[in-house]
């Protein structure tokens, strides 16, 4: 008998308690301003390539050239006026599209008659490329501001209508039953159940609409305008001023980014009750 067996009962060593943690499927904690990393990286690449002389300055001018041109256009040129004109067009068209989209979605979502009249019509409208309506609208409304605003309004109202209507139709029927049990009248039902229930969809449509308003603006101002950012860029093309074109693109980009961020911010405030993957 060996010494080992005579000593205290040989305890087989327990396997080390491994605490396996489940792999988290959520994307993890949100870091501040991480959404800017991509664009900043792109800008750095552009600057590096320009500095190294790898880019033809006539085709793609360096970032600092674009900045200089922008500053020059701002102080000496028509850039402030052009931006203001473009902003006014986008804002008017967007406002009309927003109201129309929400009103039509409510009318179609809350009554069978409304649905019969509106839903098919909007989907027909959606099937026709809005920018293809430009020639007809010029004939009807003339070449002034009205037709531009009308086209932007159409580009905006369609995604807002579609997403809001889909969210309305998706409101849980159990909540409708609850509203009946609690004795809500039609107005209370709309205000307390329908609208909050449709808000998530509305915000998706709103973000698409905001981007769409800029998109429509670019096209409109490049074919039929005598002022505005698009006109500035179109003129620059004729004179081969690629730096001016880039100034216009940067302004469009900044506006797009800022308006989208604003909508996201409002969305996060309004929908704070939602605990989703992204929060």
């Amino acid at each position, binding site marked *: 008998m060996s010494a080992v067996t005579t000593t205290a009962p040989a305890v087989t060593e327990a396997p080390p308690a491994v605490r396996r943690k489940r792999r988290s499927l959520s994307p993890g904690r949100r870091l501040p301003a991480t959404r800017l990393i991509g664009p900043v990286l792109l800008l750095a690449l552009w600057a590096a390539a320009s500095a190294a002389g790898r880019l033809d300055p006539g085709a793609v001018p360096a970032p600092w050239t674009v900045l200089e041109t922008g500053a020059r256009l701002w102080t000496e040129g028509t850039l402030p006026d052009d931006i203001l004109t473009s902003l006014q067009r986008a804002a008017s068209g967007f406002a009309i599209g927003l109201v129309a989209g929400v009103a039509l979605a409510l009318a179609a979502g809350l009554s069978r008659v409304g649905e019969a009249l509106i839903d098919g019509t909007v989907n027909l409208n959606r099937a026709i490329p809005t920018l293809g309506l430009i020639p007809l609208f010029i004939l009807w409304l003339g070449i002034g501001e009205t037709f531009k605003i009308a086209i932007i309004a159409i580009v905006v109202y369609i995604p807002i209508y579609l997403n809001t209507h889909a969210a309305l139709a998706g409101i849980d029927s*159990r*909540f409708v*039953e*609850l*509203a*009946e*049990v*609690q*004795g*809500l009248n039609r107005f*209370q039902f709309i205000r*307390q*159940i329908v609208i*909050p*229930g449709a*808000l998530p969809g509305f915000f998706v449509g709103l973000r698409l609409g905001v981007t769409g308003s800029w998109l429509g603006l670019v096209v409109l101002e490049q074919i039929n305008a005598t002022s505005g950012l698009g006109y500035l860029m179109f003129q620059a093309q004729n004179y081969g001023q690629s730096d001016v074109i880039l100034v216009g693109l940067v302004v469009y980009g900044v506006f797009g980014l800022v308006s989208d961020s604003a909508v996201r911010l409002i969305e996060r405030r309004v*929908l704070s*009750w*939602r*605990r989703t993957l992204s929060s």
Partner: protein
Amino acid sequence: MATHTEQLTRPAVRLRGLTRSFDRRTVLDGIDLDIPAGQFVALLGHSGSGKSTLLRAIAGLDHQVTGSGQLTAPERISVVFQDSRLLPWRRVLDNVLLGTDGEDKGRAALEEVGLGGREQAWPSELSGGEAQRAALARSLVREPELLLADEPFGALDALTRIKMHALLRELWERHRPSVLLVTHDVDEAIVLADRVLVLEEGRIGLDLAIDRDAGADARGEYRLRLLAALGVTEDLR
């Protein structure tokens, strides 16, 4: 169309020859029933026996259902569903006050169901039991003459259910509404109700008064009778 519902101020349910059918399949087949004011009634039955149809008829929720018969129900009716049905975009207190006002009453009702201090919580922050308590508070705020409950504890775990039984009975003793509780749980029916009905093929197959002071033997007897009425045979018990 479902029959006209007469509104009475006196809280009592009165059904005469109530019939409801879906796609020519008769679900309720001429039900006669009186529920006196303040009585706690449990309604048992297999799934598909028409329990929920009867409850929905009394609640006035059967819009597109064909049927006939006479139905009298009180004016103030509250319904508690199997799911808590709290609106996710309203805080707990606002959920309790849905369709009514009086913040103090809402706070008091939450206090009564043991949710004092959770007024500003979002429904997604509540556990299943807490959510169902909030639903109870919402039904209480309206001071119902009749409380209709459609398997309100069906989705809760066993321990929470026991606590909720005590809470519901306590609330009933304090406020004395008439209660119609739909359940498929025989023991729950005996624990809670003064009277148990068994619904079978659209008719009331058994109407059993429960003596709440009875001992364990009598309760065992109730259980056997109810199970027999539900068609549960000896060897399955």
